[in-house]
C-alpha cells in the first residue's frame, strides 16, 4: 500500500516537473512559453462511444506568454506546480482547494484573484498530466454527500479499517461519503436501485416515509451540484454493485444540469468524465410533463431560466428526443416546479404514487 502510494507520488511529481521543464526548454530555445489546453466550453465536448460519456473534443486553446493573461497563467501554473512538487509530494503533505487560494497570497504577482481561478488551475493541471487532484494531494472543500440504505461498506481511515452499514450504523442523516472515495470498499447490499436526490428536503421525506425499506432502494443525497466524490460513488455503485441509478431533482434548467453532470459529465471537468460519469443513470423527474400531468404548483420561469433552457437546447448532452420535447414543453408552459411541490398532494403522495408510478414506467420495479 505504502509503496503503491509512493509510486503514485513519484509519477505525479514527474508529470508536474515535466510541465515546468517544458516552459524551461521553450525559454532556453528562445521561444515564447506556450501551453495548449483543450477548450473547456460546451462547443468542445464529444460523446465517447466506448465509455458512453462526454469528454473534451479536439479543440485546443493556447495559453501563451505573448499576452498578459497567458503569461500570468503560465507564471501561476509554475508557482502552483512548485507548491505541489516541493510541499505536497516531497513532504507527503496536502492542502485543500481553499488553502491553495490563501497560500497564493504570498506569491506576489502570481497570486490568485479568487478561488475559482485556483480551482481552475488545479483542473488545468489534471488535464495536462492526465492525473487527478488527489494525486497532487489536493483535497476538495465540500462535504461529500450522504448515503442511506441497505449497503455495507469498509472505509480505510487513518485510524484503521471500519465496517459500516448505511442504515443500521448511521444516524438519520446517513453515511457521509469521504472525499477520497477510493478508500472505500463496497461489501454487500440488499437493494434493487439507487435514487440520487437533489434536495435535502426530499431526501429526508423519503427516509421518513421508509421508501428505502419498502422498495429496497439506496438513497443518495446529491446536495445540489454533486461533488466529485458523490459522482464517483454513484459510478462505482452502478458498476461494481450493478445497481441502476435514477436521478430525482427539481424541474428547472439548473437541475437538469445536475442530472447531466451525473450521467454524462460536467463541461468544466469533462477530463474526469470517464472516471466519474454514470452513463446508465436515468432522469426520473420532476419532468416538465409531470407539471402538467400532476398539476403541480409552480413558479414562473425567470429570464435567467429561459436563457439557461435555450442554452441547453444547443448543449450536446441534451441532444436527444426526450430532452428536446421536455425542454420545449417547459418553455411553452413557462413554469417550473420544485420536488417539494408534491407535498401539496399530501406527504405520502411522492412515495406512494409518484415514484412507484415513474419507476414502473421506467421498468425498474
Amino acid at each position, binding site marked *: 500500500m505504502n509503496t503503491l502510494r509512493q509510486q503514485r507520488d513519484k509519477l505525479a511529481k514527474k508529470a508536474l516537473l515535466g510541465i*515546468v*521543464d517544458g516552459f*524551461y526548454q521553450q525559454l532556453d530555445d*528562445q521561444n515564447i512559453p506556450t501551453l495548449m489546453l483543450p477548450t473547456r466550453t460546451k462547443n468542445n465536448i464529444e460523446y465517447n462511444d466506448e465509455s458512453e460519456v462526454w469528454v473534451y473534443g479536439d479543440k485546443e486553446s493556447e495559453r501563451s*506568454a505573448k*499576452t498578459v493573461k497567458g*503569461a500570468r497563467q503560465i*507564471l501561476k501554473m*509554475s508557482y502552483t506546480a512548485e507548491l505541489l512538487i516541493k510541499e505536497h509530494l516531497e513532504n507527503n503533505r496536502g492542502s485543500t482547494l481553499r488553502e491553495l487560494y490563501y497560500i497564493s497570497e504570498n506569491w506576489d*504577482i502570481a497570486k490568485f484573484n479568487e478561488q475559482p481561478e485556483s480551482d481552475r488551475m488545479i483542473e488545468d493541471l489534471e488535464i495536462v498530466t492526465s492525473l487527478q487532484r488527489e494525486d497532487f494531494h489536493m483535497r476538495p472543500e465540500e462535504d461529500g454527500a450522504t448515503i442511506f440504505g441497505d449497503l455495507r461498506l469498509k472505509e480505510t481511515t487513518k485510524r484503521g479499517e471500519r465496517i459500516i452499514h448505511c442504515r443500521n450504523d448511521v444516524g438519520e442523516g446517513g453515511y457521509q461519503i469521504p472525499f477520497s472515495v477510493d478508500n472505500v470498499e463496497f461489501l454487500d447490499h440488499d437493494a434493487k436501485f439507487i435514487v440520487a436526490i437533489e434536495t435535502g428536503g426530499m431526501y429526508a421525506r423519503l427516509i421518513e416515509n421508509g421508501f428505502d425499506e419498502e422498495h429496497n432502494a439506496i438513497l443518495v443525497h446529491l446536495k445540489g451540484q454533486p461533488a466529485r466524490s458523490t459522482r464517483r460513488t454513484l459510478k462505482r455503485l452502478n458498476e461494481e454493485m450493478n445497481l441502476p441509478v435514477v436521478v430525482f431533482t427539481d424541474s428547472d434548467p439548473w437541475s437538469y444540469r445536475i442530472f447531466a453532470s451525473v450521467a454524462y459529465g460536467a463541461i468544466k471537468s469533462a477530463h474526469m468524465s470517464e472516471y466519474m460519469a454514470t452513463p446508465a443513470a436515468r432522469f426520473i423527474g420532476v419532468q416538465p410533463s409531470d407539471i402538467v400531468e400532476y398539476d403541480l404548483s409552480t413558479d414562473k420561469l425567470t429570464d435567467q431560466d429561459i436563457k439557461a433552457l435555450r442554452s441547453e437546447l444547443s448543449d450536446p448532452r441534451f441532444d436527444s428526443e426526450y430532452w428536446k420535447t421536455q425542454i420545449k414543453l417547459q418553455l411553452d408552459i413557462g413554469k417550473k416546479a420544485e420536488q417539494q411541490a408534491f407535498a401539496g398532494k399530501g406527504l405520502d403522495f411522492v412515495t406512494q404514487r409518484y415514484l412507484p408510478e415513474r419507476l414502473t414506467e421506467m421498468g425498474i420495479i
Partner: protein
Amino acid sequence: MAAPIAVELAKKQRAISIAEFFEKNRQILGFDSAPRSLLTAVKEAVDNALDACEEASILPDILVSIEDAGGDNVTLIVEDNGPGIVNEQIPKIFAKLLYGSRFHSIKQSRGQQGIGISAAVLYSQLTTGKPTRIISKIDRDKPAHFCKLVINTSTNEPEILEEKEVEWDRPRGTRVEMEMKAAYIKGRRQSVVEYLKSTAIVNTHARLTLVEPDGNTIVFDRATDLLPEPAQEILPHPEGIELGTLIKMLRYTDRQKLAPFLRYSFSRIGLHTAEEICKAAHLDPDTEPPNISLEDAKKLIGAFKKVKIMAPPTDCLSPITESLIYKGLEKEYSVDFIATVTRPASVHSGHPFLVEAGIAYGGSLGKEDRVAILRFANRVPLMYQQGGCAITHSIENIRWKNYSINQPGGSIPAGPAVIVVHVASTHIPFTSESKDAVADVPEIMNEVELALKEVARKLKMYLSKQVSLSKRREKEEIIKKLLPRIAQKVSQVVEKPMPDITPIVAKIMGNLLVYRTVSKNGDGYLVDILIKNYSSANMTINLHDTHQYPIRDAKPDPKVISLGKDTDYIWKLDVRSSSNLTIQYHLPFVSEDEVNSLPSLIVEGVDEAMVNGAKAIRGYVD
C-alpha cells in the same frame, strides 16, 4: 319673414381671446402632465432671466426654489439678478400673452413669442386659483416693487390685485413666485435638475442654484466670468422671404421709392444690388412701394433668387464657442476625453444659423447604455420629443461604427459618451409651439452631421491612440514583470541555470535582436552573433564590435578601424523584415574572464527602443 340664417349665426360669432384659447389647449405650450408643467414653468422663467441678464450685460445668478405647497401643488420661486422691470411693464410681461420685446427683432434669443412666462402664470391661476406674486427692483437705491397679478382670460389683459413698495435684499433683479398643480421628480432626463444641468453646460457664464423641496441645495457654478458676445439685431434677408411678408413691408414702408426700400429694409442689399434686382424684376427703381402690385411683388421674389446676394450677416448669432462647450462638459461630467466644434454660420430659408457640437467620452459614463443626447436651441435645452428632432435624426444618420462607436440597430449609438448639439439661429424651425424639437430642415441636418463627424473623428483618433498605448503597456508588463518571473521560477523548480530571455523579449516587442554567444574553441573562443529582425520594416545597420582583441576567420569580413588601444570591427548589414543573419569569428588566446567581459555590441541606424541585446546609437547608414 324670418331673418336669413346667417344673421342668427352671426350673433354667436365672436373673437376668441388668445388667453381663452390657451386655457382650453394648454398642452400645446407644454403644460400637460404634472412633472412637465413644473419643468415648463421653470424653463420659461429661467430663459427670461438669462435673456434679461445678458441684455443688461450682467453675469446671471439665478435661484430656482421649489417648495411643497400641500396636496398636488408646489410653489415655484425664480429669482434673478437682472436689470429688473419698470413698474408699468410688469403686468403686461407676466399677465398678457403674446407681449414681448423680441418677436419683432431678428436676432438670436431664447424666448421669442412672449407666450412663455405668461402661459405659466395662466397655468398657475387655472390650477390653483391663486395670483402670481412678482417683486422687481431696477435700482439699488430705490425700493422694490411688489404686485399680485392674474390674467383676465376673456380679454387677455392683466388684473392687478395688489401692489406696494417693499424692501428686497437684492440690488437689482426680478422674483416671480407662483403656486401650481405640478410635481417635482428626479432620476430621469426630463426633470428640473437635468434641465438646469444642461443649461449650465451651455451657459458657462451663469450660476444656477436649485433648492429642492426637501431643502437640499444644488449649485451649478460658472466656468467663465465673460459674458457671451451679444447677438446683433439684423434686417431680414431677401432669401426665403414670403410673399405676404413682402407685400406687408411694401405697404407700410416710409420709403418713397422701390430701390431705397430694398436697400434699407433688407440685409445684404446695397445700392448696386438694389438696382440689379429692379432690373431683373423689370420694375422701375423709382416706383412707390405701396403701388407695387401682387404680380410685381411676385417678380421681386423671383428677382431675389436670380440676383446674387451675399449670405446674411452672422453677427446676429451668438455661438457658445468650442472652448466654453468644452469647459461646460468638463465641469458637469467626469470623463476621459472631450472634443468640441463650432461650425461656420450657414443659412436656412434666409435665416442665419450655426451648429456647435461636442462629445464627452469615458470616465464614469455607463459603458453599455445608449449615449445621452443633449439638444440645445439658442442655448435652451430641449427636454422632450427627442425622437422627433432633426438633431436626433442627424445622429442616427451617421455611421458611428466608422468612428469606433457601437450603434446597435443603426439608431442612437451606445457607449460611455454624451453628445451635445447646439443650433443657434435668428429663427429656429421648431416642430411645434412647445418648442421641444427642431424640424427636419435639410440645411440644418447637414450642418449637424458635419459638426458631429468632426468631433467623432477626433474621438476616433483618441480611441485608436488608447488602443495602441494599451498594447504597448501590455507588452511592457510582459517583458518587464512577467517573463523574468517565469524564467526565475521555472529554473528554480527544475534546478537549472536561468535562461537569457533577451531573444524572447525581442520577439514579443517585434524588435531587432542582436545576440552574441561564445563557445570554447582550441586555445581561444568562437564568437557567434545572431541578428534577427522581428519588426515589420527592413533595416540597414552598422554593427560595431569594439574591443582590444585581434580577431580571425571573420565571416563576413568587417571593416576595421583602429581606435588606439581598441579596434572597432564594423559590419554593414541589410536585415530584411523577419529574416536573420549570422556573424562568426575567432578570438585566439583570450581567457574565459576576458571573453565573458566583452563590451556590449553597438547598433547604429536604429532607434534604441527597437533593439534588444545591443546598445543603439543614432547615425546615418548609407
